[in-house]
């Protein structure tokens, strides 16, 4: 089976994720979309790994999953902290770091 289809799916998922990050304003959804992008990359890695017959890509995919888990932990922690302090759960309102 040609690798093309896998890559097409991967690209689609990545594009959906990226669009979500840019368009949506809720931090929770942005985190979800980030996960989509990471998993799209994982799909591509595994597909390439199958194609070459090696294990490197799969190892990379595992590492990406670990990173993703860490990132979700931190991100969700931030969201909980924001909620507890009564801050708006909206990334457009959180712009204190403007120049």
């Amino acid at each position: 089976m040609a690798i093309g289809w896998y890559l097409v799916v991967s690209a689609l998922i990545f594009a959906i994720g990226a669009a979500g990050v840019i368009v949506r304003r809720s931090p929770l959804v942005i985190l979800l979309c980030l996960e989509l992008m990471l998993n799209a990359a994982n799909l591509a890695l595994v597909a390439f790994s199958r194609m070459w017959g090696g294990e490197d890509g799969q190892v990379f995919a595992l590492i990406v999953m670990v990173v993703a888990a860490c990132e979700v932990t931190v991100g969700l922690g931030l969201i909980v902290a924001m909620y507890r302090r009564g801050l708006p759960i909206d990334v457009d309102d959180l712009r204190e770091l403007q120049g």
Partner: protein
Amino acid sequence: MAATTFGWLVLLCPVVGTAVIGFGYSRLPGRSPGWIATAAIGLSFAFAIAMLVALLDRSPAHRQLTSSLWDYANSVGVDARLQILVDPLSVFMVLVVSGVSTLIHLYSISYMTADRGYSRYFAYLNYFVFSMLLLVLAGNFLLLIVGWAFVGAASYLLISFWYRRNTATKAGIKAFVINVIGDVGLVLGTFFIFTHTGTLGFLQTFAAAPHVFHHDSTDLVVGCLLLLVGAFAKSAQIPLHTWLPDAMEGPTPVSALIHAATMVTAGVYLIARMHPLFELAPTAADVGAVGGCLTLLIAGTIGLAVTDIKRVIAYSTMSQIGYMIMGVSAGAYSGALFLLMAHAFFKALLFMGAGSLIGAMAGNQSLDRMSGFRRAMPFTFGCFVIGGMALAGLPPFSGWFSKDDILAYLLHRGGGFEVMGIAGYVGAILTAIYTFRMIFRAFLGDPCPEAKELEEGHIAHVEVPTNPQTGEAEDTDVGFPGPEHHIAEREWPMKIAMGTLAVLAMVGGLAQIPGVDDTIRNFLAPSFAGSPLAAAQPSTGSDWIGLVIGAAIAITGIAVAYRVWVLMPGTSTRIRERMSPLYQLFVNKWYFDELIEFAIVRPVASFGQIANTVLDPGLVTTIVTDGTVGLVRAGSAAVRRAQTGFLRYYAALMLVGITGVVIYFLISS
């Protein structure tokens, strides 16, 4: 153990002494810092003797040893090592420095007792001895420069020791500034030589020099002249001499140790150490000889006129070092080093005697106030006369043999050096006159009130301590000589130190008698092997003719002094009135301070004024500082608009950017 091991131990003792006294000052009771310091230097002296014995075990051709503990950098053409050179010259210097230092430390134990900075004093003094030993043991230019700068710093610390005295701090700064000029000269001179020889080690430099330099080549002459700047600044030779008389603001033992016996002879050592270079660059050597000759005459005339007893001895030191510089520059190496040793003995002795006198005078240093101390202080009187006779060059004292060794060599070498030799004899008569002027005025005549009081057993005390230079009342809290005075008559450590030096000043000359023994020349010979100038010694007969002339001149000088100051006491006033312009010139020290003030200090100060009023607000503030600030502000204002704070906007930009980069590489590959 090898001689070099002892060399390292010689250096270690004073360092340990400094550290123990410096860190433990609050826990050391009473006089113990003084004893620790003296023991450290005494141990150093013992190791120096061991080093001498170990060196003498070797055959004369193998008496130049180097030892290196550590490589700072040893690549790309630089060989910077922590390296010492043990050869007869350095061993000779180490023996003189550590030996005289031990005695002066011993003297200080009593002399400084009443001072509140007792521990600080001994920590500084040990640090000075370490620096000086490092200077003379250094095996390469790098360590020489380190030692050179260290002794300058130690000298500054000790001159300004009584830091509540304005005059003392000013004198310290003056000495430091002039010494730094010398340091710069030494560093630049080293650079000139290093660029050609490519090595910092002394022995390698001397081996390479004849191959890379032509005879009298410009670069070598410039390098040697710069080394001479260093030597002249450290040895207080004209025109870099004005700091030495002011350095007498320090405690008297400091004047004895640093500004008479050891540090100021570093210039002589430098020229002797660099003799292969100076012999390749005779122009520079001639400049050195002329400078020394001028100094010995000018300092001698000033010594006739000043009345501060310590300053008289200071000018005498300058004059004697003038002899040494003239000698080493002309090639009379063993003679100059012999005088260096003899001078260390008798000049330290004279300073100690002066310290005792100043103690008896309750801090007053003026010869105008002193008189008739002969009966009140017989021991000091005896030592002072011995020191004075050695300084004046009376037979058979050490000064007679050593000074005339140099002068006989100069007359033997001929040419312009004969003139210098005759100038040296003129200087000798001046030396005899000012030395005995000092002795006659301080010890003979009717006793002054302080001397009378001392004869009855009381030491004079002043109600309010005053600065001997300015007369203003002193801060008695800290940093002043202390209320109690100590004189050699009553303190055995001072007595032992002075007695030992008096014996050495008497018999030191016997180390080298023409035709009888040549101990010093033979010992130093391996260091000056291969030097044609060192080999060209005058015959024993002409040596003795020189000695007889020298003795006659010394006796004449003493007779003149006796006639002027003892037989007919009014004569000096009459001479002063008749030759008023000359007296004014001498008493104002040939106006060197004023000349330097006018030619260097004023122009630099006015340039500083201009820089402060015109350049700084006009150029630096408007263009450099304000311009930079404006540039950064405008630049950041332009970039600031991109930082909106919208997270999604950043994410979109990042996506576009990374996509752009990826596409670029995809297309370009």
